């Protein structure tokens, strides 16, 4: 047990976070080959939010995500190979090659896609909540947005609409403190999103978004309550993006984000933190961790190799222009 969560679940949470991290780290590597030709918004540093929330949800609960959707897709149970195929624009991709990295879709697990217009998915999650209520089952729609999404007017319209229509929606605000490079305090005079939600009649709480156990346990309780009351709820998860807003690089230094922040948040890395806790509180599980990591890395490697081979075969056939050498300033 770690924080009242049973061993098996703890390992599953660890495995999911490690999977998300490994996929994004591999994208960073493959990106320089210029065969993944699209804007990628990596989830590195933010894995605990998607994992804690979505592993507490049912398969029949719906999810609407944002441009930074890799973690949400995987934690909702989206198919790994189809996701990698999508990065290579293959028709076997989860969005048949039409969506790309920002629009991952897997209807089988009720991952209903993601929008790259900040805040745009929020009212859609309210509509899904309404449809779920009309259909009569006690499923919930989980709508993700970042702190940037809460800059948008439509977010506040959506809070009002959800409270007014009493729909089973969980708004998850993944607060990484930045809209690209603009910090929240430069964008919002009153940054407390929970009190803003309450003023619209939507109850909410804020949690440490880098503590997957806390996120998971909070979400379990919230989803139970949303199912019973059919009222919306807002969960703010405070976290931090360890990579750049877009692309495989980083954005720290003069005129960008302060290096001191990176150091502070690296110490709070959600995966490293959980590993330390497991080693401290459940040393018997430590061996399992190494085993899980090996399995995940092998799975990710195999998925990438298969997609790359398929991409190269098609590329040779249709004669796309040969990839240009990488330009480090642009990636």
């Amino acid at each position: 047990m770690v924080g009242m969560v049973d061993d098996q679940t703890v390992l599953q949470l660890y495995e999911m976070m490690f999977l998300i991290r490994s996929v994004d780290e591999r994208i960073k590597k493959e990106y320089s080959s210029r065969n993944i030709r699209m804007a990628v918004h990596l989830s590195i540093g933010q894995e605990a939010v998607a994992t804690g929330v979505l592993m507490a949800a049912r398969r029949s609960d719906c999810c609407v995500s944002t441009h930074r959707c890799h973690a949400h897709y995987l934690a909702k149970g989206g198919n790994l190979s189809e996701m990698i195929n999508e990065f290579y624009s293959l028709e076997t991709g989860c969005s048949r090659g039409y969506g790309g990295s920002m629009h991952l879709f897997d209807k089988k697990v009720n991952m209903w896609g993601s929008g790259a217009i900040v805040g745009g998915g929020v009212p859609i999650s309210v509509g899904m909540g309404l449809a779920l209520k009309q259909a009569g089952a006690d499923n919930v729609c989980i709508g993700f947005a970042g702190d940037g999404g809460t800059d948008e007017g439509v977010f506040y319209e959506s809070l009002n609409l959800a409270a007014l229509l009493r729909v089973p929606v969980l708004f998850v605000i993944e607060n990484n403190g930045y809209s690209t490079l603009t910090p929240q305090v430069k964008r919002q005079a009153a940054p407390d999103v929970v009190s803003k939600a309450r003023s619209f009649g939507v109850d909410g709480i804020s949690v440490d978004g880098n503590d997957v156990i806390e996120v998971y346990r909070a979400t379990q309780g919230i989803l139970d309550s949303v199912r019973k009351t059919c009222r919306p709820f807002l969960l703010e998860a405070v976290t931090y993006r360890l990579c750049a807003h877009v692309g495989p690089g980083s954005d720290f230094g003069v005129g960008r984000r302060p290096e001191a922040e990176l150091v502070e948040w690296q110490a709070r890395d959600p995966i490293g933190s959980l590993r330390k806790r497991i080693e401290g509180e459940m040393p018997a599980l430590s061996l399992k961790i190494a085993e899980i990591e090996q399995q995940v890395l092998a799975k990710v490697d195999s998925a990438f190799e298969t997609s790359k081979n398929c991409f190269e075969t098609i590329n040779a056939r249709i004669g796309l222009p040969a990839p240009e050498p990488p330009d480090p300033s642009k990636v």
Partner: protein
Amino acid sequence: MRVHQMSFDEALRTAMMQAMNADERVFAYGQGINDPGGFFGSTVGLAEKFSEARCFDVPLSEESLIGLGVGAALLGRRPIYVALRVDFLLLAMNQIVNHAAKWPLLSGYQSTVPLTIRCIIGKEWGQGAQHSGAYHATFSQVPGLEVVLPSNVSDAARLLLASIQSDLPTIFIEAKPLYGLRGEVELPIQLLPLGKANVVRQGDDITFVAISYMVGFAESVAAQLEVLGISAEVIDLRSLSPLDEMAIVESVARTERVAVFDVGWQRFGLASEVARVICMNASCRLKSPLVSVGQKWEHTPGGCFREHVHYPIQSEVADELLELF
């Protein structure tokens, strides 16, 4: 099958009732939808018949309301959003263009958005610049949207039914002057497939391509020209997207003259699109320049007196067309 005499609002209401009766996934919402006036009569009685769960009033939040419809539609519901004026839909362009129209593609066509948006173009009695905007051409520029503009009572009922049953997001545009019409509607209403134009009057000398209330206007001009020995063919497009290009080409190839009657502006609108269709088709050769009939190139002035000269005037249009011959 029974034939009923109906007003325009009654036809729309009847189509909505038939759709809601046949399919429990259909629901309607809009600002003031359950007011006694109920969208000029077109939604009166729906809440009583189907409960407020399926016909409900909403706040002034256009963007989130369209998003609400997109979300519900993705999960298989068939929402009908009703907006009193097209101008207010501009507040929701992000959801209409970036979300409703694009979500099917973004998912690799593994999802559909069967959302219908009913809206009204204001005209007459001084609607002013912000209540009389005609943005059907703007919507038609967006792949993934359907844009429907009925011209008469029977078509309105049948096209609304088709819009509700369509799996694509559909903007169903009603012009206010049509609310004065009466006509025959067959019950139960039979669906009229979108994208099929209707030749409402046959002729050999010139083709009038028209939409919405301008179909009636074009018919009046055609009657006026007939007296002078000119035979005009009048085509009611019924929808801009999908567009029945073949109907335009077949007629213009024969008449070799064309005038376009739009409820929108003379520029960047239906006339421009008809010109594209004609110019790109080798069988169409014009003997005289295309004539564009529509709103003058400015926004509608307030008050009926100024409004009157903003819109095309029948006698002036007839004179302009006579000069072609």
